[in-house]
């Protein structure tokens, strides 16, 4: 129970992810399915396991049920440990009353007692919004080498997109000299990835100060980092140049799925030395019937394909019936595309049924979305960019 850990991770999974529309109506964003058999949270959790970090606190607040059930005992990520493992950390009642998490920093602040159980030297703060493979242990070694107070992972983004990000202005030694949230005229194109390695003593001190400031919005980006910069603490940027994709909107979630259909795959998920783990649905291999056509797609266990699937990602247990077609689309677990239905440039959420002969999405325009468990009547039409939650 009380084994000291050099470094533990805290994963902020409380956000509502409202830009994902109806996809997050019933589940927290990190629980969103991705890539045929993953959930977004599989990426930071697998990165932790692969980096040798074996204590992960997952801070939840919004609709944690699906996430909770998905994480379970942590066994898919080898995090079902007697000494460490994955812990789901919701808000709770202390003394006479409870407090919800008021911001990212507040969520960590409220769990100081949890962190201290492991007496860590370093605490890694993660978010559950991105698809990427990263060696946090390399980041930790860098942080230790630089004797930094906080190290922030940064990735170069195209200059024209820089105004959408939190930008780190660094000197020649990668020391962060300034942080600008969504600058109109960026001086740099190094975007913060929302991955922070803190020396725990320092973080605890700043969390306590921040908690005492009634004007603070208790946020890492808005408060903690600017305060540390203001105090001339040692902030370093840690360069990352691998695949890194935000999946915070319907379009970007769709794009991130489509990325996997490129040759070569821009994020190597075949690497046996850095596996991405996930909970396995435990069903038989998928079936492609006589007369079916499947091309340029990812298809996983339990699917049954009688129709046509092109340039799409099918999750476990999806059925595509005769005469149906799925093109440029993402179809989440156990959805059914009935006879003759046409799905194009769409995301069909878990358990949805697309009635026979329906048309979902269009060849151009925004992505159409069918919500979880929605039963679309036969012959329905859903236009580009439309979202159906019933």
């Amino acid at each position, binding site marked *: 129970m009380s084994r000291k850990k050099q470094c533990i991770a805290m994963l902020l999974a409380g956000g509502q992810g409202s830009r994902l529309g109806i996809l997050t109506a019933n589940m927290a964003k990190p629980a969103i399915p991705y890539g045929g058999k993953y959930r977004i949270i599989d990426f930071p959790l697998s990165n932790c396991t692969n980096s040798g970090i074996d204590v992960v606190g997952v801070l939840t607040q919004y609709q944690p049920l699906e996430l909770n059930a998905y994480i379970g005992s942590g066994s898919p990520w080898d995090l079902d440990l007697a000494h460490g493992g994955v812990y789901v950390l919701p808000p709770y009642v202390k003394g006479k009353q409870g407090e919800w998490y008021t911001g990212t920093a507040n969520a960590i602040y409220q769990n100081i007692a949890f962190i201290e159980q492991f007496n860590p030297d370093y605490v890694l703060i993660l978010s559950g919004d991105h698809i990427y493979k990263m060696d946090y242990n390399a980041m930790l070694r860098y942080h230790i080498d630089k004797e930094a107070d906080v190290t922030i992972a940064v990735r170069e983004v195209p200059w024209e997109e820089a105004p959408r990000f939190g930008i780190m202005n660094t000197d020649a030694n990668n020391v962060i000299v300034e942080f600008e949230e969504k600058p109109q005229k960026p001086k740099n194109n190094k975007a913060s990835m929302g991955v922070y390695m803190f020396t725990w003593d320092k973080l605890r001190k700043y969390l306590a100060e921040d908690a005492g400031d009634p004007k603070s919005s208790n946020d890492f980006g808005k408060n903690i980092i600017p305060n540390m910069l203001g105090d001339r603490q040692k902030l370093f940027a840690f360069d990352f140049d691998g695949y890194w994709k935000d999946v915070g909107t319907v379009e970007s979630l769709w794009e991130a799925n489509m990325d996997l259909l490129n040759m070569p795959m821009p994020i190597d998920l075949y690497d046996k030395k850095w596996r991405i783990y996930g909970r396995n649905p435990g069903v038989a291999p998928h079936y492609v019937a006589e007369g079916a056509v499947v091309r340029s797609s990812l298809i*996983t266990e339990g699917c049954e394909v009688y129709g046509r699937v092109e340039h799409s990602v099918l999750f476990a247990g999806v059925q595509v019936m005769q005469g149906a077609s799925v093109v440029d689309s993402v179809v989440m677990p156990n959805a059914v595309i009935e006879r003759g239905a046409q799905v194009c440039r769409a995301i069909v959420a878990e358990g949805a049924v697309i009635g026979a002969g329906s048309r979902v999405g269009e060849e151009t325009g925004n992505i159409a979305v069918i919500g979880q468990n929605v039963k679309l009547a036969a012959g329905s039409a859903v236009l580009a960019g439309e979202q159906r939650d019933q």
Partner: protein
Amino acid sequence: MAMKNVMGIIYTGEKDSFLRELTLARAIAAMPVAGRYRVIDFLVSGLVNSGVKNVGVIMQKNYHSLMDHLGSGKEWDLHGKNDGLYILPPFLTRENVGVYNGSLDALHSNFGYLRRSRQEYVLLCNSTIVFNANFEEMFEAHNRSGVDVTIMYTRNPDMRRPEYGTYFEIGADGLITDVEIDPTRPRYENTCMEVFLLRKDLLMDLVDRGAAHGYHDMQRDVFQRLIRDAGMRVGGYEYKDVCYRMDSVQSYFKFNLDVIDPKIRHALFREDNPVYTKVRDELPARYLENAKVVHSIVADGCIVDGTVENCVLFRGVKIASGAKVKNCVIMQDSQIEEGVQLENCILDKQAIIKRDGRLIGPNAYPIVISKDMTI
């Protein structure tokens, strides 16, 4: 929750030479089937789905792949502290370097395990028949009927074999009245499924008496002889669903190709009785531009750019563009290069068929390519 009081014992030491190269380095129980499973998965999952919490697997030879597959039992939630999965390889002591002398000897050698286990009943199984049962109903039938032993049987005619198998005559009251073992031509239509349910203390008594008489074989010596002599009441319980016997390359091949058929697959893989297996954390199967796949089952981790018809592709198989495979069972991580033509073949794990290779077997006698072979 009633089956919590039943322990399962799976004997995996059966004669396996029928299966030729495929069982050179593995027991029948460890044979890969249906794209991502091993033969033993069905039985272990069936026991767990029935509520059994304690499963002992008796290993005889070639048990490394089986041990590796079962691991800590975690995939079946059999990694508890008291109950759980117990791997029982032969004893090697200072005096005794050797293997079990038949199933009875194996049980006798594991008396300590039997005694220590908290359950009052034992479900004793062999491992060469593939079926996905829930044993709760059998347990209820056993308790209701008040017999000493209940044995599962099937009327499926495909399970009968000349000179092989155990067959029962069953009376109107459901009791077994005669047993024939390995008859030249089976006289009875009831084929033994090699699943025996009885009280643990009775089993221990039978094994002890059998061993004391120098017997070796549970079926022939105990269930046929001892029980008859002792005048015990043995009931039959009919299994009515899909089952396959893994006793030849042909039957192995047929089973795999049959599973492609949705009807048979859905009968074997039921949502209410899932089959668990070791997870490999593979990507979904990837279909490239030139893929043409019909009537096949494809496991995760495959990369397909060729033509595939009536095949079972296990995890991580690669079919290059221009390759054509038909009626084939291709095990894990095998690679079929460009321009290859395969028909009626079984490829064991990690086989490689080099560019433009051609292997066309006869329908009834598939060509077997051994593990790690490159052709």
